[in-house]
């Protein structure tokens, strides 16, 4: 059973299909694995993707970009107003909803952002279908963590209008974790993951706690003012300056020339992620004059250094907010197209010295892959009724510890159930006692290892057979939903057992 995952971003959309246990990104009809989320309206047709993006130079007024910014928002929303001032396409107010005014025919047409999103999603569906060769409707679609309910609903409606059967909307950071299979192989342990996503127009950093295979967002930060486009802008400015220096003509006032320059800079930027230098060439930029310029990676990094700093800078406050340090992060996942930039990756690596940096998958595709994996999990299982986008579960509030001593006799604590374990939970733990002892004592604590944990219970096993070998004691710790703990211990050689129940505080 095939299913697809769609990442619908501000600037680009990406689709991955899940088939035969694998999730793969599929290329669109233009051969690109990522489709620009741009829709151009013409007399008789609507164009989605790269053609629309390039045609924007000539048809800016009827080309909708970054539709996700206004999707599901009201007209008075500051974001909408911001979008209105930025975009070249006219945005009008209709019953408190923003609408795009498209003037291709004799009469202006009013297009809702949902319709635009529908077109893009439909294109993604077509892409997936052409790769699969069969009809596929089951899909998981990603949303940014900060999306409000209304925006999610708008996206879901758009997807359903595009012919999708939306299995679930999942958050982008979670999809990224899924793509790297974090916390999926076993339910053991607790770890913290930082998802760093730098897309075309927005930066979002999220710290997640992974415990028992369940992801929990600790804190998140979103900044819509920085993204790949800012870098392109900076590069385009530089190119315009170069042009002025060579031809003594300032093109920065010429909107169309700047748009051409932006397209050129965009391509140069992409090649600079893999090459040391890139050539930017724009035909007839101004007055029939062609423009050609060579940009080195060092130059680009210099141009964007302040932007890079700005992109990195939110990480530390975010960690502080979550009460974590850079060393308590176990993994960093990079996603979003701009996270490909080598300098940026280097800066993040410097920030997290001994942390595994996950960037093996193409950063702009991981989210779609994660969504596809989730879709694969969900497809054909009606029993998993569509849940709410956010789910509350019971988790343990505090670490459950057992006190042991190491070889030197110093006290040490072993974590039986870390805080944040989804409940109910059960854990086997095997302990050893010195063979010469005839009795052992298990002490159960709760609290943080560092800050004097509270002693909860003591379990005594007596009348053991002293022997050469160590006593093996199996403890089964069960925590119920309300937090009450049941511990039972068995000494394996004698079968002597002891059990206690610790009631939960109400």
């Amino acid at each position: 059973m095939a299913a697809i995952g769609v990442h619908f971003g501000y600037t680009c959309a990406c689709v991955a299909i899940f088939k035969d246990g694998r999730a793969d990104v599929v290329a669109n009809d233009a051969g690109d694995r990522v489709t620009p989320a741009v829709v151009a309206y013409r007399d008789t047709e609507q164009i989605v993707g790269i053609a629309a993006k390039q045609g924007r130079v000539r048809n800016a007024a009827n080309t909708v970009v970054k539709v996700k910014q206004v999707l599901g928002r009201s007209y008075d929303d500051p974001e909408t107003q911001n979008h209105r001032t930025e975009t070249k396409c006219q945005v009008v107010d209709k019953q408190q909803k923003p609408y795009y005014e498209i003037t291709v025919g004799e009469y202006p047409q009013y297009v809702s952002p949902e319709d635009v999103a529908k077109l893009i999603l439909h294109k993604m569906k077509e892409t997936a279908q052409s790769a699969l060769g069969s009809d596929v409707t089951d899909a998981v679609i990603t949303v940014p963590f900060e999306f409000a309910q209304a925006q999610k609903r708008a996206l879901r409606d758009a997807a359903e209008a595009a012919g999708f059967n939306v299995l679930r909307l999942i958050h982008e950071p979670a999809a990224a974790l899924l793509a790297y299979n974090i916390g999926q192989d076993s339910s053991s342990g607790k770890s913290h993951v930082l998802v760093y996503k730098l897309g075309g127009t927005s930066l979002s950093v999220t710290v997640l706690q992974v415990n028992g295979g369940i992801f929990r967002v600790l804190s998140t930060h979103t900044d819509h003012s920085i993204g790949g486009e800012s870098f392109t802008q900076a590069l385009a400015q530089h190119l315009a300056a170069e042009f002025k220096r060579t031809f003594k003509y300032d093109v920065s006032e010429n909107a169309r020339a700047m748009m051409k320059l932006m397209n050129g800079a965009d391509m140069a930027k992409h090649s600079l992620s893999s090459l040391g230098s890139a050539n930017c060439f724009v035909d007839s930029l101004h007055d029939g004059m062609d423009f050609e310029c060579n940009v080195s990676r060092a130059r680009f990094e210099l141009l964007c250094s302040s932007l890079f700093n700005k992109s990195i800078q939110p990480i530390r406050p975010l960690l502080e907010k979550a009460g974590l340090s850079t060393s308590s992060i176990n993994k960093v996942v990079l996603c979003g197209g701009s996270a490909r930039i080598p300098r940026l990756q280097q800066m993040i690596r410097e920030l997290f010295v001994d942390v595994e940096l996950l960037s093996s998958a193409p950063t702009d595709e991981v989210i779609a892959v994660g969504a596809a994996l989730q879709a694969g999990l969900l497809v054909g299982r009606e029993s998993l009724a569509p849940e709410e986008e956010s789910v509350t579960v019971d988790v343990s509030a505090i670490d459950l510890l057992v006190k042991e001593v190491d070889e030197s006799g110093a006290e040490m604590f072993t974590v039986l159930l870390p805080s944040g374990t989804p409940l109910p939970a059960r854990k086997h733990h095997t302990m050893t006692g010195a063979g010469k002892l005839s009795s052992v004592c298990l002490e159960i604590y709760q609290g943080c290892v560092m800050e004097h944990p509270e002693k909860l219970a003591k379990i005594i096993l007596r009348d053991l057979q002293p022997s050469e070998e160590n006593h093996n004691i199996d403890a089964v710790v069960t925590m119920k939903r309300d937090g009450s703990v049941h511990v039972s211990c068995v000494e394996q050689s004698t079968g002597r057992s002891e059990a206690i129940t610790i009631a939960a505080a109400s």
Partner: protein
Amino acid sequence: MLLEALDGDETVVFGSAAASVQVQVEPVGRWFEAYVKRRNRNISASFQELEEEEESSEESEDEEFQLQECPMLRTLDPKDWKNQDHYAVLGLPHLRYKATQKQIKAAHKAIVLKHHPDKRKAAGEQIVEGDNDYFTCITKAIEILSDPVKRRAFDSVDPTFDNAVPSKSEGKENFFEVFYLVFERNARWSSKKHVPKLGTMESSFEEVDTFYSFWYNFDSWREFSYLDEEEKEKAECRDERRWIEKQNRASRAQRKKEEMNRIRTLVDTAYSCDPRIKKFKEEEKARKESEKKAKAEAKKREQEEKERARQAELDAARLAKEKEEEEAKLAAQQAKKEKDIQKKAIKKERQKLRTTCKNWNYFAENEADDVKMMEEVEKLCDRLELTSLQSLNEILASSSKEDGKAAVEKQVQEVNAQLQREKEAEVQARQAARSVEQASGGGGTAGKGWGEEDLQLLIKAVNLFPAGTNARWEVIANYMNLHSNSGLKRTAKDVINKAKNLQRLDPGQKDEINKKAFEKFKKEHSSVAPSIDNAVPSERFDASGSDGSAAPWTTEEQKLLEQALKTYPVSTPERWEKIAATVPGRSKKDCMKRYKELVEMVKAKRAAQEQVAIKTKK
């Protein structure tokens, strides 16, 4: 490494564990889905536990089942394998089609261990050599039951299956008891899983609907290849094989059809017996009826509403009309009153002026001046309006004789000046009208000098002497010559020509000419003597009078007037008021004027006729 317990230590609980907290988590990932699944199933166990439990339960099931060995096993004839119950042979008669592959395999193993010829031989039993041993039956049973296709074929014709369909009378009485079992039984043939349940009396319409639509579209996997008469493998040649195949196919199709019919009958019977269907139908009927009723009611109400609205409108219109009439009446009364007051006041003022002037001997020394002044004062009385009269009187009353004279003379002068102005204006207007007339009618008259006055005269004459008058055109020409002031002599021929010319003109134009003629007539009269209606102060309050004089008399009005003149002879007191009352839209003054005109016209006619008569006599 654990510590040693101290002496006297006991297992003890010191405190209570921290209560669990609820957190928001991302609904993604395998573990999350497992969690949801568990939660939906309401099982409170951790992941590991669940997984283990599932496995162990399966295992236990395997071990649990008991073999019920067939007591007839040993007497079975392997040649008659087709009629044997394979499940019973393997010791699974209680599980039948529900038995899993695992169970079948296990049962087979157990049976084989017990009944294998070698085992029996070892136990010292006598074994029949060859294929006749009952063990062959066991082999056949496992052969069929381990192959899903063959097993399905066998299951399809399971001899223990009850194909019975309850009759209608049975179903009517206790529908749910009877049909529940039947549907449960037949549900096993469904190729779809999750067969909808029959439900209870309380089932919703949707549930019942899905149930019946499922059963009406029942997709059965039951097939009857097991009952094939001939075995394909036995055929000796291809043709025979084909024939057998054909035969088998036909019989299978036949049986399948029968089966489908059976199911169909079952569902039909159930449907017709189902008390819920009856209930739903009744409900639907009731609903429709109530809807219809509501619709009719709404329509009725609407109509009533409309009726009421119309009535209200009518009432309102009537009221408004009444009110208007009332108001008009009141206004008329008021106007009349005012007019009366005005009239009285003006009369009084005039009287006052006259007496004052008389008191002062009209400010004159001699008789002639006196008379002249008297005339002037009369004129003043006629012409001046109420307010100016009042002010004049006031001046006269308050001032000396000299001042009074000056004031009166000033007023007289003003009035004379006004008269003069009016006269001039009239003359001018007349001239202008004439010039216009000449300009328009000049082409047609072709220098014959038909002036406007002549034309009017002609029309008047033509009207006066209608067709049939003796020597009509001569009479008209004579009349024209007599009355015209253009000085031209016109012959009868001229007159005929002109009249014909005029006839060709459209009636509207004629009307206009007539109207103009009347105006002219009026003007001429007023120019001869400043007529009373020209500057009567009360005219302001009598709007209809001035309008009425302008409009020409219609024939109806004319008739009415003539009738009135006859009914009220000269001696009648207030004769003209009464006449005016009979002619609607005409004032007393109008009627009088018209009467004078008529008299004049008649006189002129007579004179002209007399003259013609004299001429002819000559």
